[in-house]
C-alpha cells in the first residue's frame, strides 16, 4: 500500500503556505514518538477514523470530512470524539452530497483545510488508527496532509476489514461490506455515511474485536497488525 507515497517521491517535501502557529503545531506533532503497539489493548488509545470525500477516486477526489472516535481502555468516551468538515472551494456534485449529506454551504463554510488537518493531528496524537476498508481513509488523509500541510502522513493503520474475518472466521471468512458486520453484531448506525456515525459504529466493532482478540491471544495493536499482514499475504498468494 505504499505505492501512493512512492508516486509522490520519497523525501520530497512540498512547499505550502503555512503560518507560524501552524508550523509549530506540525513540529510538535512530529516530535511525538511512534505508538508502542506492543502495549496491551487496555493501555492503548485507538482512534477509529472514517472520512467522506467528493468521490471514490483517491487521486482526484477531495477529502470533505473526517470523523473519529477514540477507544480507550476498551471504552468509547463520547467526549473523546472528533469531527471536522474541510472548507471546499469547489462544492462536490449533488449525487455525492446525497451520500454524505454535507451540503454545499456546509462545505463552503467548513474549516480552513490546514486548520482542520492540524486539529485532526492534535486529536490523533500518536494513537494507532483504525478504519474499515482502511486504504481509502489512509489515502485520502495522506494526500490531504501532503497537499495542504506538506507532510508525509504514515501512521500505523489497522484495517478491521482484514482483522475481523480472521478472528471471526467461523462466521465470515472473507472481506465483506461494513454493513454485514454491523448487522451481524446488531450494531446500529446512527446515520450511515456520516463520518462520525460510521466511526462510532466501527469503534463498536473494534470493541468486539478487542474482546475476541483477548481470547485469541491477540492482546495488542501489534498483534492486530500482524493478523492483518499475514492474512493479506495469505490471500494475495
Amino acid at each position, binding site marked *: 500500500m505504499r505505492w501512493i507515497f512512492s508516486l509522490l517521491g520519497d523525501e520530497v517535501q512540498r512547499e505550502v503556505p503555512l503560518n507560524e502557529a501552524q508550523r509549530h503545531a506540525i513540529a510538535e506533532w512530529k516530535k511525538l514518538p511512534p505508538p508502542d503497539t506492543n502495549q496491551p489493548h487496555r493501555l492503548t488509545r485507538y482512534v477509529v477514523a472514517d472520512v467522506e470525500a467528493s468521490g471514490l477516486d483517491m487521486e482526484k477526489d477531495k477529502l470533505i470530512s473526517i470523523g473519529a472516535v477514540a477507544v480507550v481502555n476498551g*471504552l468509547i468516551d463520547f*467526549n473523546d470524539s472528533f469531527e471536522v468538515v474541510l472548507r471546499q472551494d469547489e462544492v462536490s456534485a449533488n449525487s455525492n452530497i446525497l451520500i454524505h449529506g454535507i451540503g454545499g454551504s456546509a462545505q463552503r463554510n467548513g474549516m480552513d483545510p490546514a486548520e482542520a488537518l492540524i486539529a485532526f493531528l492534535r486529536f490523533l496524537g500518536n494513537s494507532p488508527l483504525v478504519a474499515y476498508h482502511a486504504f481509502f481513509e489512509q489515502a485520502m488523509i495522506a494526500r490531504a496532509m501532503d497537499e495542504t500541510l506538506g507532510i508525509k502522513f504514515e501512521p500505523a493503520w489497522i484495517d478491521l476489514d482484514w482483522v475481523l474475518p480472521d478472528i471471526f472466521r467461523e462466521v465470515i471468512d472473507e472481506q465483506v461490506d461494513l454493513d454485514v458486520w454491523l448487522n451481524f453484531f*446488531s450494531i446500529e448506525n446512527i446515520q450511515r455515511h*456520516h463520518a462520525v456515525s460510521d466511526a*462510532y459504529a466501527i469503534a463498536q466493532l473494534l*470493541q468486539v474485536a478487542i*474482546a475476541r482478540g483477548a481470547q485469541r491471544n491477540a492482546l495488542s495493536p501489534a498483534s492486530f497488525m500482524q493478523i492483518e499482514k499475514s492474512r493479506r499475504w495469505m490471500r494475495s498468494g
Partner: protein
Amino acid sequence: MSTSAVQMLVAATTEFLCRHAPFDRMEPEALTFLVERLKLAYYPKDTQIVTPEMGVVTTFHILQRGKVLARQSGDLNVLDYSTMTLGPGEGFPIGSVTAQRASTNSYVALDDVFCYELAASDFLELMRQSSVFNLHCTQYIVSLLNQSRQQLQVQFAQRAAEQQTMNSPLTTIIKSVPISVSPESTIRKVIETMANGNIGSIVVVDNENRPIGIFTQSDVLKRIVLPGVSLEEPIFTVMSATPQTLPVSANAYDAALAMATYGVRHVLVVDEGDRLQGVISERDLFTLQRVGLRQIRQSIDGSADTDMLRQAASDVRQLALNMLAQGVGAEQLTQFISALNDTLTRRVVQLNLDRHDLGGIEWAWLSFGSEGRDEQTFSTDQDNGIVYLCPDGMAHEQTRMRLLDFARDVNSDLDKVGFPLCKGNIMASNPELCLTLEQWEQKFAAWVRTPEPMALLNGSIFFDFRTLFGKFSLAHGLRQTLFDLVRGNPLFLRMMAENALSVQPPLGKIRDFITDADPEHPGSIDLKKFGARLFIDAARIFALAQGVPNTNTVQRLKLAGVKMKVATHEVASIIEGFSFIQAMRLRHQHLEQERGRPGDNFVRPDQLNELERRILKESFRQARKLQQRLKLDYQV
C-alpha cells in the same frame, strides 16, 4: 474533542435512554449530566460483568443491547433459582453502587452485550441531582408503578371520555341496528321478536323505514295483558304513536332533555329523510354519566327482582371501569367490586328470605375463595355456603331441607343476576356445604389433621371464608377453631407451604418470562395461577401461622408482616407487586369481555409495553421473595 461529534453521539445516546424508564421522565439537566458522562463498553457472551469478588463496585451499567443474567450469590445460594434477566434500558447493580460496596449478585452477559457505563461517583452525583432517578434507585418498584399507573390512566381515560361525555353525538352512542316491524305485524310476532332478541323496545316503521310508533316491554302488561287484547291484532293498534325523534346530529344531552321533557324512556334517532337510524334508551345515557357508588347502592337496595339487580350488576362493572380509568389501584378496585357484589348478594338473599321461612334457625351465608378474600375481578362465579345451628326441639333433617331449599333459590337468583353457578359446585345448595357449625369444624379438623392434596386444595378455598349475611358470630367461632387446629398440627402449614412452592413465578433464565406453561395458550402467562395465587397462598399461610383473622391478601400480608417483623417497605413492595398483577388481570378481563370473550387470565407479555413488562418482572420477583421466606420458615 470536537463538539459536533460529541453532540451527535450524545444525542443518539439520549434518544436511546429516552425510550426507557426512568430516563424518559428524568429532569433534562440531569439527563444531560448523565449522558455526557457515559462511556460505551462491550462484553462478549458469558463475560462476568460484575461479581462479588470484584470488590467495591465502581461502575454503574445501563444495558444498551443484549441480555444480562443477574444471579444471587453468597449466603443465599441455597435459593438456587433466584436469577433474573435484564434487558436493554435496565441498570445494574443499583444497590451496591448506591451503598458503595461489593455486589451481592453476579451479572453475566447472556449474549454479546453493549453497556453504557457511569462511574460510581457520577452515579451518586446523579442521585443527588435527579429526584426521578433517586426514586428509581431507592424505590424501584414504586417508581415503575407510578409511571405505569399514569400510562393506564391515559389509556383508559380516552375510552372513558368517549363513553362519558354528554356532548357525544348520538351516532356514537347507538349500539346496534334497531329492530323494527311493520304496522301490520301481529302483536304475537312482535312480542316473540322482543323475547327472542331480549330487547326492551321495538320500533314500528312504515314502508320507507320512517318510525310511526314504538312499543316497549312495559306496554305488554298495560296495553295487552290487562285489557285482554288479542295477540292476533296488528301492532299499530297498541303502539305509542308519534314517538319522540331526534336528528343524527343531536347529542346525548338533547336526548336526555327529550326524555325528561316528554317523560319517555326511548328516543328514536332519524336521518334527514326521517328514516330510522337507531334507538337511544335511558339506560344508554345512564352509562354515559359517571355512575356513582351511591346511585348503584341505592338501585341495588331498591331492586325488587333479579332483572333490576342484573342491571345493577352491569352498572358495577361500568363503574369499576371508570375507576380503573381514573387510576384507582387494584387493591381498592377489587375491594370495591367485592363490596358491591356483597351488597348484590345480600339483596338476593334478602329477597329470598321474603319467600322462605327460616324463623328460629341461627344461620349465616358464607362466601369463599376470591369473594371471601374481597378480591373479586370481573370474571367471578359463585363460591358460597351456609353455616347454621340446629335449634333445640327442631328436627335436624327438616331444618337442613329448609335451608337447602332456600339456598337453591339464592344460587339460582345469583346466577340470573350475573354470578354464574360454580362449576365445582361450591355453593350453599350443595348439601356438603350447608352444614352446622359442628359439621364445619369436623370438616376443617379432618383437612388440617390429614393434609393430603385434596385437603390442602379445600383449605385454600374454604379457609378464606367470610360472613356475608346472618349471624356473624358463627363464623367467628369457626375461625377460632381453625387457628387452634393449625397450632396443634404444625405439619399442616408445612404441607401447605410445600404445596404453595410447587408453583413458581414464571421468570425465565434466558428469556424474561416463561410463557409456555400451558400448551393451549402458548406465549401467555396465566396471571391467576402463576401470579396472584403465589401471593394469595403465601399470605394465607402467614395469616394462619400468625393468627391473623383477615381473609384479604393485602390485609393478611400487612398484619402478618408486622407480627413477623418484616420491614414495612418490604411488605409495601410485595403488596405493590400483587396489586399490579391484579390490575393486569382486571384490565385484561375487561378488554376480553369487551370483545365478547369470556374474561380469562392469560396475558401475553409480548403485548405489554416495556414498562409493564418490567413491572411484571419485578412483581414476580416479589412473589419469589415471599416464596423464599416460606422456604426458610418451613424448611421445604
